[in-house]
């Protein structure tokens, strides 16, 4: 008896949802939900980790450049360190902005 009542309740809700979707969306094709590529709750952790790694690379970059002039300075090494550092810092600060959903 209880199961029957529960099934009736569920079927009523399902029918109501179906009619609501049908009334609100004119097309009968299958529609699927779109959500963010990164889950909401992860933005804070992502911000912290990205910033940490980015700052590590920034430190390496400035460490390499702070030594007095050597004979064999490598421009490619400096550029790659700078690029990797900027990627992580960029994602970190973007996640920081996205925590408060300012983007």
């Amino acid at each position, binding site marked *: 008896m209880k199961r029957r009542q529960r099934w009736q309740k569920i079927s009523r809700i399902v029918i109501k949802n179906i009619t609501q979707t049908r009334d609100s969306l004119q097309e009968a094709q299958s*529609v*699927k*939900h779109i959500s963010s590529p990164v889950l909401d709750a992860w933005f804070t952790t992502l911000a912290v980790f990205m910033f940490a790694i980015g700052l590590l690379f920034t430190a390496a970059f400035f460490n390499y450049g702070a030594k007095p002039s050597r004979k064999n300075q490598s421009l490619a090494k400096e550029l790659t360190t*700078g690029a990797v*550092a*900027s990627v992580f*810092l*960029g994602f970190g600060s973007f996640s920081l902005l996205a925590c408060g*959903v300012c983007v």
Partner: protein
Amino acid sequence: MGIRFDLFFLSIAVLCAPCLSDLVLSKVDRRIDLTSQIARFTSTLKVENIGSDPVSEVLLPFPDHQAKNLAYLAATTNEGKGKTKGFTTTLPVEVVHPKGMPPALTWYSVSLPKGLGQGESLTLDVLAVFTHALRPFPEKIPQDQPQRVAFQDSAYYLSPYVVKVQLLSVKLPPGTKLESHTKLEKTEVSGSEIKYGPYENLPSFSYSPIVVHFENNQPFAVAQELVREIEISHWGNVQVTEHYNLIHGGSQLMGEFSRLEYQARPQIRGASAFRHLVAKLPPRAHSVYYRDEIGNISTSHLWGDSRKTQLEIEPRYPMFGGWKTAFTIGYGLPLKDFLFQSEGKRILNISFGSPIKDLVIDCLIVKVVLPEGSKDVSGSVPFPVKQWHETKFSHLDMVGRPVVVLEKMNVVQEHNQQFQVYYKFNNLSLLREPLMLISGFFFLFIACIVYMHADLTISKSSASYMAKLQWDEVQTAIQQVQRIINRCLTIHDKLEATLRDLSRTGDMQACKAARKAADGLLKELSKELKPLLAFLHSCPQAAQILPKVEELVAKERELQEKLMVKHSTVVDSYEKKSGGREIENRIASIQQKLTALRQEVEDLLEVIDEI
């Protein structure tokens, strides 16, 4: 004025009755709901086709003065007979202008999907919602009087068709006082309802004006302007911001407002004022705020469950007639409840009207802000609205975000339906914003690299700079030469001291040992002197000073030799044990030369020092 005009029009209508004899309304049941500030007309028409041709539309006229307040008109029909009620289908309604009709009427036409055949009948439910139909009468009241409104309409249903049976029932707010009403034949008042009818067999376009004057203390919240901004962010949030400009649309407050009396007995002193507004937000709404120009308004309550989020707000002061207030409500919604994807297009499905219950909006503007990089933007609303496009510049934007603006006048709660906005968006454009930040940081690093590699000394290769450097080197070399020569001189002095010791103590061995040591040291010093002299030779700067230095070195060598000669003669003489006087005689000439040379060396040293 309006009543007189309608009477005049009625007479004309009776005279020139046009011919629309295909349809007959066999039963018209009208219910006018005046329980809130909005007048809702629900008419159930039973349409019968007595003509020979199938009919595909039913005409609904409204007088012009009423039609300008018409906010919402919908016609539905019930399929299925008897007890089994099937689905209700909404029929399309549009404005038409038929010819040969009486003036000052606005016509709406309901199109029937399958035409009404001969002899068939159909039940039509028409819902018409009118705003500002209840006129406050008296228009200004003091604080302690209740609010009374006057409502005008026709007891007979205005229709181009013949109506067989019709009745009208006007529903007033429960428990209110009815001041006066037009008394026609068959008028009946029961509780808070006035019944007119049933009237039978009235000709088409029959009109009988009635006025109902009653007390209505329901909140008359009218938003003169409401701007709803819906901003989509593909990173997971839909932000809705609503700016309200509210006014109390009932009888205006005359005289002064006494807060003491209002707080003591709010039901009597300030019956028409309202304090609370209830807004029903979608479920899972977060970060809800309620503020105005001054700042945050803390008199609000929020609670939610899985079906809705209820927000109850209280403006900073109670709203009396004619008083205005302005505030902003904002909330965020999860993206996946509202954004869908189908056939390569993205669809935003969200409600159109305001979430506040029973609010009349004079001008509603809905702005949907889509992320940068959205193309082919178009909106589709179930009722006619004015639509145009704009651009908005927001966080991290380069070209601006496309905005769809929808404007509608006279909006009521029935307009709170879902509407859709279609657009195309490439997933790669999601990376636009992080890439901007990344490129900003990268530019910073490039600047650092450039700064580290750049040479910022003023002149490195000018001739005077080089000359100065060389002169410094020459000077250091000369100083080293001087030092060496001074050491040579000290060694000479030590040797002479040993000679004197010899004359005192007669210790030959010590003397010879000292001589050997001195010889060794002098050899080392001359070795050190060689590279310095070579460097000075190679330097063009040292051309002036070189001869003096060479002279100095030569003299010093001479001095050295003479000293060695003297030393050896003295030692020899001691070995031979000759007398002191003999020794002196032998070395006298050498001694003279020694002193003279010594003097010259010292002079040269001084000269070089001065340079």
